[in-house]
């Protein structure tokens, strides 16, 4: 099993020389294994190039099947889907999985491409698109792989996914705030709380349970891909945005005895040089420890659990 990164950016795509090396496309990761249909996690703008890559194989002939796990439907996680070329070849089939809240998934995705926003509606796509509605915490199978999910701490919703195959495992946890200062539920949060101030006890208990479930999901994983949008200074300014820092990711990874942590979902303003410095800083901090640290970039292929 391997993970291929097609988009590593959060919030909005950021073209320009300052993102040439890590990449400016929004979130998209492919999980591939021999004998398994591709599993794609999130459909940010990175999925456009993934579609081209797939189209040279059975997806070009209308015989492809892919599974798309959506962490949540914020724009940066779905905006590439209408540019995923296999959807325009008859015979291909895409299974889409996401948490259902108050609206059927088909209706949510249909409204992304309805008039006047996009010229091709969901109903007009010639490929077959099947929606699979998930709850907060669920286990299901995709071919030989076992998938589990748990709820994250993000405005509206987000899910983390774990994929287990042949004794190897990868977890994708984006987007989430840490579980200390704020519990995201249904409301819009205009004013940030002050990080470090006590949280209402009932909310604190829910946050603790959410975090425990995430640590459980990550337990012993070979690879953990984690939202690290912010530096600690940026997080203190924007705790209500629903994103984490590398410190938060490292704390979860170490508690869950994860082998490799991939920093992911970078802020749009983060330049390549800044991201290099962030990686270097945390690698130095982790020197001598078992946890391996990488910073995801477009084009990176990571074997999950080493060569088979």
């Amino acid at each position, binding site marked *: 099993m391997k993970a291929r990164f097609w988009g590593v950016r959060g*919030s*909005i*795509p*950021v*073209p*320009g*020389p300052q*993102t*040439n090396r890590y*990449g*400016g*496309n929004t979130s998209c990761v492919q999980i591939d294994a021999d004998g398994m249909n591709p599993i794609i996690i999130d459909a940010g*703008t990175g999925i*456009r190039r993934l579609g081209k890559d797939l189209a040279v194989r059975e997806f070009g002939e209308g015989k492809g099947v892919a599974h798309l796990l959506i962490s949540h*439907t*914020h*724009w940066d996680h*779905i*905006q*590439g889907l209408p*540019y995923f070329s296999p959807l325009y070849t008859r015979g291909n089939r895409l299974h889409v999985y996401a948490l259902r*809240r108050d*609206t059927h998934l088909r209706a*949510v995705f249909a*409204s*992304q491409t309805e*008039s*006047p*926003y*996009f*010229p091709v509606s969901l109903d007009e796509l010639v490929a077959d698109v099947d929606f699979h509605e998930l709850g907060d915490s669920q286990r299901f199978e995709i071919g030989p792989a076992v998938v589990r999910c748990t709820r994250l701490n993000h*405005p*509206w919703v987000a899910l983390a996914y774990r994929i287990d195959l042949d004794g190897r495992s990868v977890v994708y946890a984006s987007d989430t705030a840490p579980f200390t200062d704020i519990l995201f539920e249904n409301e*819009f949060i*205009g004013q940030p709380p002050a990080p470090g101030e006590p949280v209402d006890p009932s909310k604190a208990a829910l946050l603790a349970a959410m975090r425990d479930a995430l640590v459980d999901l990550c337990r012993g994983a070979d690879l953990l891909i984690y939202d690290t949008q912010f530096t600690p200074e940026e997080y203190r300014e924007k705790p209500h*945005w*629903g994103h984490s820092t590398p410190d938060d990711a490292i704390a979860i990874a170490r508690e869950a005895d994860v082998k490799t942590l991939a920093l992911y979902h970078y802020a*749009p303003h983060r330049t390549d040089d800044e991201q290099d410095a962030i990686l270097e800083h945390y690698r130095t901090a982790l020197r001598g420890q078992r946890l391996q640290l990488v910073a995801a970039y477009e084009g990176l292929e990571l074997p999950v659990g080493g060569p088979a």
Partner: protein
Amino acid sequence: MLIRFWGVRGAIPAPGPETNRYGGNTSCVSVVGRKGQLVILDMGTGVMRLGHTLLTGEMGKGQGFASVLLSHAHWDHIQGFPFFPPVFVPGNRFHVYGNAHSSDLLEGILEGQMNPHFSPIYTLKNLGSNIHFTPVMPDESYDLGGIELRGRPNPHGHTSALAFRLEEEGRSMVYAPDAGYHEGGPSREMLELYRGADILIHDSTYTPADRATRLDRGNASYAEAAAAAVAAGARHLVLFHFDQDYADDVVDGMVHACRGELDRIGGKSIALTAAAEGLEIEL
């Protein structure tokens, strides 16, 4: 008028080294009038950087005002809106002109973008600034603080996209970002809108070969842009809204070919430029 390009791409942002020179951001152009009036043409991802530069001025103090002209509501023309920092600053005011039959419908289009399924903003009402909406009607003109605005819809696939003309003290520019002309090119009324423009920023999404296989997309080739410029007697044609798959060298080739096309069809005197992020043109 000072024209600046912040995003010149169509369809979807195209990051990567291969788009570094022309830029990978989706459509956004700013115009500053002689009295400092700010007009923003479309809000693709390019508008994010424009917003950051504006924060150093009145927009940063909540004393800013801009007219925002939206050609249509396809994602590549509105997706930068929630990432335009000045809309979050209380006190700033925006007047949005767009392609809808009523101001409520126009507001509803942007409201749909903020829906909590898609955006942590939840609703336009959570933006701190004050936003007004006006639908643009053909044959009417609108006063943007001394800049005269007129607009008219071009065919664009199954829908339409407004072309805008801005005039100030005898100088004129036209912005026609998505133009899927039927056979025969722009309508007579549209040519009147373009007529004699000092600058014609025109949809040039495709090479003629790609246009021929993508007629239903509703976008023009550089050859159609050249023909429109000649027919309208424009002085300076600016190619704009490039396909997301065209690397910089492909766009270089389009400019070269378009120069030849202009010369061939009677447009030898028409200046030609390809829009690029960071390009400025003073009128």
